[in-house]
């Protein structure tokens, strides 16, 4: 589904991705991209979406190189981290707009119902609360039946009821055989929902594989502690490196 080879990206002097090789196979699994702030999670996702243009490296989606292309994004649903929309459009117009752009069958009615947005359809987006905006955001992301779903911090700003529904939705998508990528800070959410983990640190992949493998490798039953122990090893190796040099 996604094949990334030797991906490098630097913003100015700041190297964000430093040789990423990643292969996510097709269908039915949820991959969580984890890592501390600034480890390159968002940049990696943006590279896949074509928003960030890598310095070197190759990304293939469904077997096709994406550099300079845009049609491949028909196969992707994306949920951005921050939900900001044109202030003076109504929810209905926004949904129509995205449908207009994608020109593909959409299941917006179902999602509107699911998130209880019926009463907001004719509200301007400037008048919506952050949580409602996030629900609109989710609706836009899940409207389509695309084989690849990328969610950037999907849980932020959601009330518990919506969280429950979101989980159900993600599982449903998984059942439908889609490839799903998620970035999040909430480990319990990852533990609950993800199958595989990609752990990024300093622009490199430190770990890739199923959650259980990580837990075994770090000899921790808890995911959060497993992650923490990776970070501990990293800092101690750094300090010994500093001492020896």
């Amino acid at each position: 589904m996604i094949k990334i080879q030797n991906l490098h990206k630097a913003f100015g002097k700041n190297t964000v991705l430093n040789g990423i090789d990643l292969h996510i196979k097709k269908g039915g699994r949820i991959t969580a991209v984890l890592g501390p702030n600034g480890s390159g999670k968002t940049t990696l996702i943006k590279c896949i979406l074509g928003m960030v243009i890598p310095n070197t490296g190759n990304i293939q989606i469904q077997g096709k190189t994406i550099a300079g292309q845009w049609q491949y994004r028909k196969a992707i649903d994306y949920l951005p981290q921050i939900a900001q929309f044109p202030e003076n459009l109504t929810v209905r117009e926004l949904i129509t707009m995205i449908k207009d752009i994608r020109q593909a069958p959409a299941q917006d009615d179902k999602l509107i119902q699911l998130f209880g947005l019926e009463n907001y359809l004719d509200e301007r987006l400037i008048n919506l609360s952050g949580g409602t905006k996030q629900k609109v955001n989710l609706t836009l992301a899940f409207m389509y039946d695309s084989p690849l779903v990328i969610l950037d911090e999907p849980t932020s700003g959601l009330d518990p009821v919506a969280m429950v529904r979101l989980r159900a939705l993600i599982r449903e998508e998984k059942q439908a055989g889609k490839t799903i990528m998620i970035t999040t800070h909430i480990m319990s959410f990852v533990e609950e929902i993800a199958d595989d983990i990609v752990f990024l640190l300093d622009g490199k992949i430190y770990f890739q594989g199923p959650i259980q493998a990580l837990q075994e490798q770090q000899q921790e039953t808890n995911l959060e502690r497993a992650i923490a122990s990776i970070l501990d090893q990293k800092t101690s190796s750094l300090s010994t490196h500093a001492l020896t040099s």
Partner: protein
Amino acid sequence: MKKILKYTLFDLLRSRWNYIYFGFYLIFTTSLLMLSGDVSTVIISLMNVILILCPLIATIFGVMYAYNSREFTVLLLAQPIRRSAIFWGQYFGLALSLSLCLLLGIGLPFLYYGLSSSGAAWEFLTLLGNGLLLTFIFSGLAFLIALRNDNKIRGFGLAILTWLFFAVVYDGIVLLLLLFFRDYPLENAALGLSILNPIDLSRILILLKLDISALMGYTGAVFQKFFGTLWGTIVTLLSLGLWVLIPVLSIRMIAKRKDF
């Protein structure tokens, strides 16, 4: 591009700022027409306002809109659509909405007061055309600045400086040059310098329509002679055309390579 343009226009046409901008032109033009029955006088007063305001508002709105819609742009970027289509759509949407404000804001009062009978239709159209061109040019420049600068404060400052440069500073430099080299024949230099600045060029084109240059003696006659010829018209249109085109093409160039 058309789709993005359409929804950008939907969005902006409902913006309160757009109404304020439209309302300003409407009230200003109406009161001018009521105070002075003389259409040519009104056109001169309007010219002074349009030459300052159109670029300024286009610059500020352009930068503001480009920064405000950044997150939404990111969402759009994830959709199966060309990058240039997104930015061109947004740019043309903005420029068109501002143009509509100008067109209706000064057009309606003139229509109401009977433009066709006044015989100043041509002057009015020149004024309007230049206002529209300036709107397109400066919102394009603003978009460009916003695209090139991720730091909002810096981008905003740069945009205002750009406006200030073309609206005020440039003329100051031209005047200093003319005074400094006054012992040389400078008609052609003065002409060349004004053609390079779209605000100056617009001002001269409107003044020429108002016959003022003919009033201004020898040098005025030289300028009118230039702008009256085919060659002068070509150069003028070329310059204004380039001023519209360069930002539009640069937007595409930068959008192509930019990381979001």
